[in-house]
Structure formats: C-alpha cells, structure tokens
C-alpha cells in the first residue's frame, strides 16, 4: 500500500503507533511527487528531499524518545506561497517577489512547525491570490488532478491540487472571496475558511485585509478539524485575531446532528447554477433529513449585490496593500531609469500581471477622490445589509447551505480573457468573507467525473458544530478522502 493514500490522521495514528516512521512518509510523498508533479505542477517551490528527511528524522527521534508530540507531527504538508516562511522563497506567484525570502515565519508557519508537521514546499496560486483558476500565477499553470485539461480553481489551486493528487497530506490556503473553498470544490477536497479573526493573519501576505483568512485544505473533515486545532487561536501580533479560549474541534466529530436546522437561500439555487450541481446538493441534504436534520428555504435578497460589493472592497484594499511593492526594499527592482518615478513605474508595470493590475486600477479608482462615496462607501453599506440578512437567518437556523461554485472545474484558458465571467465563480462564496462568517466546502458528488462541492456557512466561531455536521454528511455520502486517479509515468 502506498502511504500517500492515507489521510493525515490515519498516517499520524500509524506514526504514533510506530507502525511507520515519518521518514517513510516523507520518502513515499517524494516518490509520489516525482510521479505526478510533472503533470499537476502544484508546487511553486519544493524543499529538497534531504531537508524534509532531516525534519522527519528529528520527529522520529522524538517519538522514539517518547516525547509527546501533536497529532500531526511528522506529517508532510504544503503552504500556499503567500504564507511567509523564514528563509524560504515566498513569492505570491508574482514576478515582483521572485526569489524573495522573508526574514520571518507567519504565525501559522510557526504553529505547524512547532506541531512537528513537515513542510514539503510552497504551493502555486493566482498572483497575490487574485483569481479563481491559478492561471494568474506568473510562473506556471497548475492542472486539476481529476482532469489535467482543467483548472484546479483558485486562488489556492496549488494547495487543493496537491492534496487531491496525494502529493501532501494537507495544505494551507488563504480565502478572500472563496480562494480555499472553490479550489477545494474543483479538486474534490475539504476546504475551510474560518471565522474572520480565528486564525492569525500575521505573516499572510495581504490581498484584502478585511476579508483574508488562512484555512486548511484536507482529504477529509477529520483532517480539517485536526489542522484547524493547530492553527487557530489568539495571536497578539494580529489586532484582528480574536482572544477566546482554544477549542477542541476534534471533540465535535462523531456526535449526531439530529435536530439541526439548515437554511437554503433561494438566491443561491437559481439562474447560473448548473442543474446537476443543484441536484447533487439537494440530494446530499435529502440524506441529512434522514438523520433528523430539517431543511428550510430562506431568502437573503441582498446576496445579489455581494459580488459587486466584493469587487469594490477587495480591489480597494488590494490597491493599498500592493502599493508597497515599489522596488525599494525587496523584490523586483528595475533601476535603469534616472529617477525614483522611473523606478516605480518600471518595477510595478513589469512586476505585476494583468489581473493584479486590473484590480489595483479598480481599487485605486474606487478610493480616489470624488468616487469614494459612490463606490467604496456603498460597498461597505452593502456589507451591513448582507450581514443583517444572514444574521436574521441564523436566528432560527444553524447553518446555511449552498453549492460552493455554480460550475465544476472549467477548461484551462476557457475564462482567461473574460474577467467578469471569472468573477462569477465566487458568487456563492464571497458572502462569508464580506460578513466574516466561517464556511466550509466538502465534496458532495461528481458531474462528468469532476468533483462538486457543497458549502456550509455557519455563525461566527461555530466551526466545531460545522465540522460535526460535515463529518456526518461526509460519511452519509461515502466520499471520504478520495484521491484523484492519476495516470502515472512509466516506472
């Protein structure tokens, strides 16, 4: 049996029982990478086998000495390339940060390292997390392991593809408008965007600060709970990190979900949604009713305006967050001109790709004098309305369920030149970001061989019960931990 087919928790348990070693896991993972990475191309940078093995040996030694380690010690994983790793290139898939080695670790990097998880590499993404297909990476495409002609989704497409292809046991991504959940849906894995403030953003290279959250991409719901337990928690270095008692998410798993109430917003099941996807989501919910869950129709009319609001708030914040890439302190710097303005223009125009420029432009415009009230302020008001509607649904429902994405993974190149259509990928996911609510995507079936995701949105900090719900749903659907079947190169 190949070890890479195990879930992270299964591998970890075998490790704790000393049936296998971390070194074996790492070797198996690198063999798998050698086999499939040339097709998937989910990594943007890969640590050397030796480096990873050295870390694995260290964990094995500690386990041997009886040191009590976290449940995920010795497990190989990947981080999205916008999460800072001390001394290891962190590029946001942008030319402007080509070769940039941050001098410090992100909070989640430290948390995972301290937990003994083994960093294998940094995953590909849309440049600065702007995109829904990972086609906006300045370096290379990543292919969907279920169909190499298709995109893995984005922007955490590399993370989702690596998990689905068995190249790592889990990965972290970041989600600003759906960037964890949509690729999770496209690649048939579990992806969670936690409540805004649950996971520290310290060391996450910002796209839109009021929307960004880091979260796990895993093979199944149980893995998701374990990873979340490690990365969640208060960090005094992030002022938006919420100070609350650490929760044991794994303790929720296995509890029954009888009596829970689910709301289906009609707005998320109408025009634009592929019929087969709708049927899969409804079918999954029908299974829930068999275990005592009640499903209700609900309405959140303002969600129709979520996308326009999002495409003002996110670019506006991005235009400010990305202004620091100016060629003075780090990263690309084109100094052929004679003065400072030349440096700014040359560096930024060369360093950023088309989509990033488009959003910087849009955001700059939305904030510029004379337009702030007409655009940005309206978007902030819209955020209030949407949140109020969702809160009123949550008054008498536990969860809101929607499809994660209106379509399955599309063909590479299909939407590349049509920004507006590309933006519609996020139509069901952005609401959770605008409101700060937690949301998770789990696989709920296949359409034409491609995975389909179902999204559960919860109340703030209700991740425990969401995972409890999804854990039951996952077993009802019998889709737990399926890897994409990949054609292997000749051995």
């Amino acid at each position, binding site marked *: 049996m190949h070890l890479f087919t195990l879930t992270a928790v299964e591998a970890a348990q075998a490790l704790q029982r000393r049936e296998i070693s971390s070194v074996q896991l790492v070797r198996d993972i690198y063999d798998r990478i050698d086999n499939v990475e040339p097709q998937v191309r989910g990594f943007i940078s890969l640590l050397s086998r030796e480096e990873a093995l050295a870390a694995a040996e260290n964990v094995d030694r500690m386990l041997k000495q009886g040191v009590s380690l976290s449940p995920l010690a010795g497990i190989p994983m990947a981080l999205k390339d916008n999460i800072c790793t001390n*001394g290891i290139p962190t590029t946001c898939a942008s030319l402007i940060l080509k070769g*940039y*080695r941050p*001098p*410090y670790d992100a909070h989640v990097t430290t948390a995972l390292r301290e937990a003994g998880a083994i960093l294998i590499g940094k995953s590909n993404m849309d440049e600065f997390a702007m995109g829904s297909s990972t086609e906006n990476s300045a370096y290379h495409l990543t292919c969907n392991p279920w169909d190499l002609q298709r995109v893995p989704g984005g922007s955490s497409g590399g993370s989702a593809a690596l998990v689905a292809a068995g190249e790592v046991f889990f990965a972290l991504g970041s989600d600003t408008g759906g960037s964890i959940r949509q690729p999770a849906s496209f690649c048939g894995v579990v992806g969670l965007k936690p409540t*805004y*403030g649950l996971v520290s953003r310290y060391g996450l290279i910002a796209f839109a600060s*009021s929307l960004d959250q880091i979260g796990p991409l895993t093979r199944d719901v149980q893995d998701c709970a374990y990873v979340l337990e490690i990365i969640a928690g208060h960090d005094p270095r992030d*002022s*938006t990190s*919420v100070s609350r008692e650490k929760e044991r998410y794994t303790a929720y798993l296995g509890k029954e979900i009888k009596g829970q109430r689910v709301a289906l917003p009609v707005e998320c099941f109408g025009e634009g949604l592929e019929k087969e996807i709708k049927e899969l989501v409804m079918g999954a919910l029908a299974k829930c009713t068999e275990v005592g869950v009640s499903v209700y129709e609900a309405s959140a009319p*303002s969600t*129709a*305006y979520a*996308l*326009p*609001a999002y*495409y*003002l708030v996110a670019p506006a914040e991005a235009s400010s967050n990305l*202004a620091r890439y*100016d060629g*003075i*302190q*780090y990263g690309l*710097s084109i*100094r052929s*001109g*004679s*003065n*400072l*303005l*030349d*440096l700014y*223009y*040359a560096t*930024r*125009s060369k360093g*950023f790709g088309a989509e990033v*420029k*488009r959003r*910087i*432009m*849009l955001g*700059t*415009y939305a904030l510029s004098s004379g337009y702030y009230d007409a*655009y940005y*302020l*309206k*978007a902030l*008001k*819209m*955020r*209030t*309305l949407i*949140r109020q509607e969702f809160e009123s649904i949550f008054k008498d429902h536990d969860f809101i369920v929607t499809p994660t994405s209106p379509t399955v993974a599309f063909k590479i190149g299909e939407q590349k030149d049509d*920004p*507006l259509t590309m*933006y519609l990928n996020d139509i069901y996911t952005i609401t959770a970001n*605008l409101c*700060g609510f937690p949301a998770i995507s789990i696989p709920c079936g296949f359409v034409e061989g491609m995975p389909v995701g179902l999204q559960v949105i919860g109340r703030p900090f209700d991740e425990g019960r969401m995972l409890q719900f999804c854990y039951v749903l996952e077993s009802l659907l019998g889709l737990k931990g399926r890897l994409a079947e990949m054609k292997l190169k000749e051995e």
Partner: protein
Amino acid sequence: MKISRKEVEHVAALARLAFSPEEVELFTRQFNDILDYINKLNEIDLEDVEPTSHVQPLHTVLREDEAVPGDSALLEAVLREAPETENGFFKVPPVID
C-alpha cells in the same frame, strides 16, 4: 457612470503603473464592463445604512509599551533582500519632488 481613457490614465498614474495605449484601450473597455456590473449597487437605497468597515465586534486592541531592541540577524537578512544598500541604508535613485 462611465470611465474615460483619460481617467484610466489618471488612475494608472496614481497607482504608479504604466500602460501602452493598447492596454489603456483594453482596460477602459474592461473597466466599463465591470463598473456596469458594480453599478447594480445603485439599485438599492443605502442612504440610512451604516457602513461596515470591520466585521468584528472588536475595538481598542492595545499592546503594552515595551521595547524589544532591533534584531541584527533579521536586519542582515532584510538588507540582503534589498536591491541596493550602502552602510546600512537603503539606496534609492534621487527623489525629485
């Protein structure tokens, strides 16, 4: 609201981005498509709605006023990343106001 080529050029200057005339043309078109879509927001009356700038109920998050001296290893790593430095300074082309 429609955006003109001239406005696109002005916004580009604010963002320190340079575009070829063809790019400006393309951006103006794409911009107007996106703005058309965004202008949907004008359909609803938002007059009396409070804007949400922060989704959390958090406020007044403070740290104690305690100093930690600069870390020389970190500074070294920072300066190593810099395109040009001299005597511990970042070096930049002359600033023209």
